[in-house]
């Protein structure tokens, strides 16, 4: 019996729910300043998206 809970499947869920939150906290702390490469869409992309729509429409 752990934390007064008899079934291992239930106390496992109890522990894992807390550990999942701890995992989230740990991830956030270790990757606090880590960025990915994607930046604001530039004019070229916006223009391309409009062109794509036009081509689709023509097709």
């Amino acid at each position, binding site marked *: 019996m752990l934390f*007064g809970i*008899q079934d291992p499947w239930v106390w496992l869920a*109890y522990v894992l729910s807390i550990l999942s939150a701890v995992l989230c906290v740990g991830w956030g702390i270790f*990757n606090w300043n880590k960025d990915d490469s994607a930046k604001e869409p530039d004019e070229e992309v916006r223009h391309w998206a409009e062109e794509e729509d036009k081509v689709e*429409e023509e097709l």
Partner: protein
Amino acid sequence: MDSLWMTITVIVYLFAVGYLGYRGYRATHSATDYLIAGRKTHPYVMAISYGATFISTSAIVGFGGAAGVFGMGLLWLTVLNIFFGIFIAFVLFGGRTRSIGLRLDAHTFPELLGRRFKSRFLQGSSALIIFLFMPLYASAVLIGAAKFIAEQLGIPYEAALFVFSVVVALYVIMGGIKGVMYTDALQGTIMLVGMIALIALTYHSLGGIAPAHEALTRLVEQVPDKLKAGGHLGWTSMPKFGSPLWWTLVSTIVMGVGVGVLAQPQLAVRYMTVKSGRELNRAVPIGGVFILMMTGVAFVVGALTNVYFFNSVGKIAIGAAAGDVEKIIPMYIKGAMPAWFGLLFMLTLLSAAMSTVSSQIHVMGTSLGRDLVEQAFRAKKAGSGMLATRLGVLIGILVSVYLGYELEKRFGKTGTEIVARGTAVFFGLCACAFLPMYAGALWSRAITRAGAIAGMLTGACSSMLWMLFVHEKESTALLLCKTLFGVRSLGIKLVEGKEVFVHAGPMVWAFVDPLVIGLPLAMLVTVLVSMFTRKLSEDHLKRCFG
């Protein structure tokens, strides 16, 4: 006196919400602002908004009450909610959604899918699925909130429904996603404070963590015979493997809501509201702790209400609530908690409902305005798209209110049951229709346009058919199976007038969630069709993946 304080608190709260909605309106200058908050949202606002949208009143009261019946086994849902709903969602899906959304200049979930697979049909049909089925889900939350407000403030139900809908409609129409997310941040913070207080007070009143759980374990003798026959083994144990209760718990609650969250359009769009991957990383811990404090607390407290009710009235929770699962948590709050907490909890539930409904109608509006009307009429000039989206929001809330109100009025209890299934129907449908192609859009270069479309149609149709004819919770409420075949589910046989559940090994079909059938089928079709159809051009893929 209580009622006076309650009214004052609600008025102050509504003013605060109105002010934040106004701030959102003032900060909205373009379609990008209205749809994805100019891609500049603070990580706290994004994470709390995501969590508050995810968690509705029914997640606390409905599922908390269900924990009063099923027990603490429901905590597996919390594990999935945090691990899939936050960690996997933010770290894997969020980062990719944001970067591909940026590269393709997408502003909505259907637009992301449509541009990724170069298919206006995909964008339109995804938007149509959202616009057709979201109102049922929104109705479920809206009606629940209106009933709750009416009961708490002692005002007529219609008045509560009217005021609630008008307030939400106003700040969503005016402030767009900024209005939604600013108010979500306030509402989510109230929810966080309310639920932390709830767990602390509950454990304190029951003598601490382990003693409270031990008292619950000792109640095993009190399990009613009907629940025992269904496989119930006590509130700190999982139900018997393969029993109807086990299937309901594992299949519907855990899988249906736990995995279904990954493909929810109103949640996925939030990844595109932040400036960079750094903001997403910073949102992960906030989201993780938020969800633990929401569903984790609701399920533990829900189960522990059995100890409180047994000690105070000599009955287990469901007995004390006269069989009404939804009444367990409110009765517990009223009986076991101090008066000041009743006020805080009322605000917590009001916030939970408002934050979910506001995001639902925003997504309905953007689906209609941006993805359907704008695409159909090419109305991109001079803010006409924004107008269409705002009109879409208005139509969305009107349809939701009408649907919930009329279904109950016309069909009575049957109508109430249909609305109550709204959340499960929408989650199941989204997971089966969107998840395979959404995952494919983010990670696979091999999934083709035809594969994505075929998978979406397979997922949508198979999950709908399963809900209409097999999964007994929905098929019973939706009545079509009974009308056509004379039984409430094709997974149930009538033997000498008695219902017998059809099963294959441990699979009791009537209890198997649509997701268990629809998702693998949709994945298989997506992959198979993609193997034999034309790939998207390398240029396009390069643009998507960088």
